[in-house]
């Protein structure tokens, strides 16, 4: 900003006019600069409010992880993995059967959701006619299922899987099936997204060379969509690992002191065992619950890192 009215014009004008024009410009500019300063402060304030909001979320995560390590620290030793649950000797109790139970349940979940979820996604993206009313209904239905509270799936599991038509009883297989149904919509939606991201020219090229629709899907579309599908499956599995509410209804709360079996006998899982310990008064059991949270967090962070790695490694634009 110049100190004195200073105006150069392409048009020749008398000095008097030049001063007047320069002054007018000066005043106008000053007006805008004043506004600018106000707006700059306003903008900076707004940006800091935004950062504050974001940091609330980030601080909450950091605080939670720190708390788990501090509170569970005294029990972070090998006994945690090798000993069975107990309320009689809480200082020695562990998570062995719960970890095994989670492995059984999650193994079953993976076996169920990969073929069912990817199959449904392939059908809806590659075979189904989107104008067909039934297919549109299926589509809406899956989006809706993704929003149904997990405990409602527990009720479904209790009424139809543990008792009712399937009558499996309170066994690990019932937990597997319930959790698989719960995360299936997530897998389907993620796989559909991954399949949709493969350009149709890949499939069209394959079809033009004489492949059948299934050949084009199996040999061209699915391999291209695999990283995306895998990411979706991993995120769904990590959700299933931490899920406790529906398992409360299908029997995974008993104190199990023997290694579980898939189709018979009681079972328990890591999150429900943590809940069982946490809802008891003994101090040692509270520490044990926090140590269980650490185990679960470590497992989940490992799994999520794989998902993030996959996404960054295979992200490509066609």
């Amino acid at each position, binding site marked *: 900003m110049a100190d004195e009215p200073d105006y150069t014009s392409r048009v020749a004008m008398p000095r008097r006019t030049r001063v007047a024009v320069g002054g007018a410009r000066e005043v106008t500019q000053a007006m805008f600069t004043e506004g600018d300063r106000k707006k700059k402060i306003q903008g900076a304030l707004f940006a800091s409010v935004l950062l504050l909001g974001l940091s609330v*979320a980030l601080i909450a995560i950091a605080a939670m992880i720190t708390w788990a390590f501090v509170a569970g620290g005294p029990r972070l030793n090998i006994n945690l993995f090798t000993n069975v649950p107990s309320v009689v000797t809480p200082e020695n109790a562990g998570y062995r059967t719960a970890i095994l139970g989670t492995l059984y349940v999650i193994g079953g979940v993976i076996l169920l959701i990969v073929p069912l979820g990817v199959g449904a996604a392939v059908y809806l993206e590659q075979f189904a006619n989107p104008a067909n009313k039934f297919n549109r209904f299926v589509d809406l239905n899956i989006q809706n299922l993704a929003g149904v509270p997990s405990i409602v799936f527990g009720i479904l599991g209790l009424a139809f899987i543990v008792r009712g038509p399937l009558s499996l009883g309170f066994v690990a297989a019932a937990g597997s099936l319930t959790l698989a149904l719960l995360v299936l919509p997530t897998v389907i939606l993620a796989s559909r997204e991954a399949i949709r991201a493969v350009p149709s020219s890949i499939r069209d090229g394959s079809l033009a060379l004489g492949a059948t629709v299934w050949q084009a899907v199996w040999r061209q579309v699915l391999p291209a969509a695999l990283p995306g599908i895998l990411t979706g499956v991993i995120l769904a599995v990590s959700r299933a690992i931490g899920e406790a509410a529906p398992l*409360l209804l299908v029997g995974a709360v008993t104190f199990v002191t023997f290694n579980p079996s898939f189709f018979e006998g009681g079972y328990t899982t890591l999150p429900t065992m943590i809940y069982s310990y946490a809802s008891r008064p003994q101090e040692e059991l509270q520490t044990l619950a926090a140590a269980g949270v650490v185990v679960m967090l470590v497992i989940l962070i490992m799994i999520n890192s794989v998902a993030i790695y996959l996404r960054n490694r295979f992200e490509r634009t066609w």
Partner: protein
Amino acid sequence: MSTTVENPGVSSSGQPLRSLEAPGPRIGEKIIKGLLWLAATLSVVVTTGIVLSLLIPSIGFFQTVPIWDFLTGTVWAPAFANPSYGVLPIVVGTLMVVFFAILVAVPVGLTSAIYLSEYASRRVRKSIKPILEVLEGLPTVAIGLFAFNVLTPLIRDLTPFLPWTGPFSIGVAGITVGLLIVPLVASVSDDAMRSVPASLREGAYAMGATKFEVALKVVVPAAISGIIAAFVLGISRAIGETMVVLLVAGAGNPVLSFDPTKGTQTMTAYIGSTATGDIAAGTITYDSIFAVGALLFLMTLAMNILAMRLVKKYREVYD
């Protein structure tokens, strides 16, 4: 899959063109398509299963307890010798959780979303989004335990003027659920804001608007239906949250109360705590789980349908 080439002798010159019809009936292809169709249709079976599993016991329940008494009764005491099934106390518990969750999730989620969508550089975005996803993926039992051990004492110390009694609090449960749904609210509104075309922003900048004005007066209003959808999805998630409420608000004492400092029961907490008590099938208490579940299902269904409508609206405008 066999890899035989189905059209070996391609006509060079003079040979008659081959038919483009499939050479065989392709039974394998049809079977595969049928199996895939079955996988897709399973979701309809699941929905039907949910509706039936809620409806059948609920009908039995409402034959004993009139539906009007259920919906308007103010005493929820299923375990008493003289049981009463007025659902309002636990519905109020759920609404308290939703209220406090929204109080936290709307400002935190929306500011995070505006920052990620309008202010953050590509690199910052790429590192913060996975962290928010971690928060979304944290087991709710872990979050509940953290809240009970850390958040409740902290909030209690910060507000000594409130009449705190006992270890449980429905207000803290709501705040915790609010933190839990921040990533959901943030990522859905972030998507909505990012789907606002760049031309709108550029137009505003060309008119002399600042970044602040563009974000708040152009992008947010343009994405408003998606942002509201994010809030509605958050509410739906808060209604259905179980473990945090069980741990932080306790599972007992279903008294009709609007006091956030006291522990009370919600619909989900009732289902969760009653079903673990190993009650006999066929009793009226057992059936009450399903009646409460049906109400819960209807509430979240309404929210989800509303959210889907809103999301569709912003997609139609800009895609």
